[in-house]
């Protein structure tokens, strides 16, 4: 029921509703637009408020003038019955394009006005913003505190590098990796020998006579010139591309160190040159780990403990090495034996009595 005396005497006789926001400002809104909001509608019908400036409806605290303007835009469009679904959808998609903070305000305000379609629209938009982000990114977007403890963050687990014990281990294992690489190169070199024996007669004799150490020495002597050339060339490349490396910087120690470069270079190079002769094979180049072997990050006490553990571990690994090699060579021999079937077909990887045909497995 509207006080006719208060209405402006316009030919169209448009009706307005008066709304007051939390900051005290009052505005008048076309009736059909305002009534689109269930909360306002309820207020008008139940209490009769909103018909004049003095009896303006007080909107909930979460609705400030700017946001009210947006909400009314939404209502103004959607309350018109003539729009098609496609038109509404297009309007909605354009409507929600705003920064996240405003979107949050809008969601909250729409909720307080019980305007469910708008709540859904904005909530979905917020959901899309959240999807695909990491917790850190979400925190930044919504300005939220990082107040979960480490224990609480435990599930789900992510890359953990801050546990001091793990970091100690990583240092330990980095050294191991170095050794591993050295040994691997040695092994590679030995395996290379079999198919294409380029050794001189002297080398062979000294090998047969049991001077293993000499072999390594002789070879690196012979190929030093080759290596030096490669190393220099590589250095040129590295200086050119030093700026690109910044992106790859990594605080944790990497696997392989420059010290084993000579052997590594030579062995891999020979492998590579052979591979290149294959027809139609276009393979990707080898890369090299570099040891970020800089210890400034750890306390000296930890470093000491680490060094001790490394030594200990090295000692133990060394003692196992001959046996390991034996097992490995046995593994190679196994290949030559004709594949014989046992009853459950365990020599075949992927076959068994009923091949697994379950979707997704």
């Amino acid at each position, binding site marked *: 029921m509207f006080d006719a005396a208060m209405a402006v005497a316009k030919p169209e006789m448009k009706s307005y509703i008066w709304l007051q926001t939390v900051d005290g400002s009052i505005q008048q809104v076309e009736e059909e637009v305002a009534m689109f909001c269930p909360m306002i509608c309820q207020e008008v019908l139940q209490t009769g408020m909103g018909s004049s400036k003095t009896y303006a409806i007080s909107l909930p605290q979460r609705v400030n003038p700017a946001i009210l303007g947006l909400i009314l835009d939404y209502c103004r469009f959607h309350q018109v019955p003539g729009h098609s679904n496609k038109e509404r959808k297009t309007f909605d998609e354009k409507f929600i394009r705003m920064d996240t903070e405003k979107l949050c305000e809008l969601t909250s305000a729409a909720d307080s006005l019980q305007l469910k379609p708008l*709540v859904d629209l904005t*909530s979905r938009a917020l*959901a899309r913003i*959240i*999807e695909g982000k990491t*917790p850190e990114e*979400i925190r930044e977007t919504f*300005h939220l505190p990082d107040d*979960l403890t480490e224990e609480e*963050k435990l*599930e789900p687990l992510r*890359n*953990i*590098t801050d546990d001091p*014990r793990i970091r100690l*281990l990583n240092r330990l*294992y980095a050294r*191991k*990796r170095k050794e591993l690489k050295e040994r691997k190169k040695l092994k590679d070199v030995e395996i290379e020998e079999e198919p294409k024996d380029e050794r001189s007669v002297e080398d062979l004799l000294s090998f047969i006579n049991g001077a293993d150490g000499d072999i390594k020495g002789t070879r690196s002597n012979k190929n030093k010139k080759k290596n030096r050339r*490669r190393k220099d060339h*590589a*250095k040129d490349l*590295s200086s050119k591309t*030093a700026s690109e*490396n910044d992106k*790859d*910087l*990594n605080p*944790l120690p990497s*696997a392989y160190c420059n010290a084993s470069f000579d052997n590594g270079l030579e062995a891999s190079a020979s492998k590579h040159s052979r591979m290149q002769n*294959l027809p139609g*094979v276009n*393979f*990707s*180049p*080898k*890369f*090299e*780990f*570099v040891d970020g072997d*800089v210890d*400034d*990050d750890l306390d000296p006490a930890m470093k000491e403990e680490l060094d001790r553990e490394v030594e*200990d571990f090295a000692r133990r*690994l060394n003692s196992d090495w001959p046996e*390991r090699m034996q*097992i*490995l060579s046995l593994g190679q021999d196994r290949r030559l034996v004709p*594949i014989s079937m046992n009853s*459950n*077909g365990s020599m*075949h*990887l992927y076959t*068994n009595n009923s*091949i*697994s*045909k*379950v979707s*997704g*497995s």
Partner: protein
Amino acid sequence: MQSSTDKTPPIQRLKLLSNLTQTPYPPLSASFNTTTSPIQWRLRSNSNCFALLRGIVFLLLFSRKTTPFDMPPRIAYSFPEEVLEHVFSFIHCDKDRGSISLVCKSWYEIERWCRRRVFVGNCYALSPPTLVTRFPKVRSIAIKGKPHFADFNLVPDGWGAYVSPWIKAMAVAYPFLQEIRLKRMVITDECLDLIAKSFKNFRVLVLTSCEGFTTHGLAAIAANCRNLRELELRESEVDDICGHWLSHFPDSYTSLVSLNISCLGNEVNLSALERLVSRCPNLQTLRLNRAVPLDRLANLLRAAPQLVELGTGTYTTEMRPEVFSNLAEAFSGCKQLKSLSGFWDVLPSYLPAVYPVCSNLTSLNLSYATIQSPDLIKLVSQCESLQRLWVLDYIEDDGLEVIAASCKDLRELRVFPSDPFGLEPNVALTEQGLVSVSEGCPKLQSVLYFCRQMSNAALHTIARNRPNMTRFRLCIIEPKAPDYLTHQPLDAGFGAIVEHCKDLRRLSLSGLLTDRVFEYIGTYGKKLEMLSVAFAGDSDLGLHHVLSGCDNLRKLEIRDCPFGDKALLANAAKLETMRSLWMSSCLVSYEACKLLGQKMPRLNVEVIDERGPPDSRPDSSPVEKLYIYRTVSGPRLDMPGYVWRMEDDSALRIS
């Protein structure tokens, strides 16, 4: 927000730095000129220069981070809880739910109360009480049990994966539970009974590759679950005692939407089945078992013309024209049919009965159909809308060429071996078939292919044709088979696959492979989540490449490879970021297992050894099988006698 001053301890600084850099594993620099010149690679010039550069970057990054600490924290926009909950209701993906829960305390709380759907990838990664405590209002749960290699009989019986503790906990905590989906778990009749009685609104039961129950348990479900929508027994081992369990669905029960009994061995009560199908107007999926005769199929189809997915029973019977025309007419009546499977014992002359529905089919599973190439071709060439095809290698290269020409929408192809244990090839299926499909089907992204020969060249071609590949599982039947043209290892071929297919999530290797292939995988397989390896590699370096390079690796399963302790120990921290690692018939010593178990309390390191206690053998001797998985619930208490957990035991501590 953690306040940070200049007195921040080193560990804090490291934490910040590691958060910032986000890559804890060694970086790989790789851009080279590979054409004619010999291989060159870049190096950082020397370690001093490197240290200086790093120091500068460290300072820059660190100083950038200190500034916000001095300003007062911005007040987070106050959002009513219900509204936030409403926002969360639109976020379904598990990963996103996980991210939400890690944002801050209030979001953690809100999220856990409104989480309705939980996926537990490893039933031993957490305990049932942890689950029900954290998520009080779950409606849908999916749990996986045994490791994937259980499918290949590598996990001995009685290993575990019992769902009983879960059901018991949920029976109390989740009276409104609606859905249970299990994979590779042991579920007993008691569990099924408990499910039937505890959850009043129970709707979905999907048991994939499960075991331990009988048809009595199914009867309990049928009798009590008034609101059941889906009952699916996919490839499960069911003790089929009595086919009358189906009759336990009351006559008033009409809400069935999906029924999959394809793995049941014995006959079900056919008239009960027909009555059930007739009175359930919403039935969309019906997968019959082999025992359902072909001449009863037409009746079932007529009773449910709205079917979308059908699995036939045995597809043969005496050839009689009226049976055929009856069947053909019944199929024609099923206008919504999109998926076909079953086809045991096919009599080819009955195949034309399905021709009317072929053009609408998006999924066709012929993996039990022992029909020869010409009949297969006639069938498949009509399925122009096909997106998923599972077929035996009877399809041969010719058939795959036809598919490449006709099925332009194909997304997934699985070719299974008809005679995997035969020494000689029995069909004309080679790598060429896969190459044809990779050329002709632009949407192909998931492949499982069994064959007897492969070449690097073919793999290169496939990789270049299909950079959109996401799952690539190649199974060359003979272990360690080299490139049949060049007799070289298949390293380069698989290398091309990981290099070109940048979104590759799942990869299975086979054939002759050296450490080189793992180098490629570590370099390029950045999105790789699951890797299966057998009879490959030369040394620990191979394993190291994978563990250190594949940033998104979740599941790694290895058998019969010469991988030992070094790579495993060197990458121990990586294991906590993965769901699980399986290694069998490798060279990991008992000692290394013990060490790993001691140093990594958040991992369960389980040694499976049927030869007897590992203590009775030297420490250096390799264990038979090793299963390592991360967990927040400590050791499991249901291990059988042949599984030993490597504990954090001070008596075993090494100096």
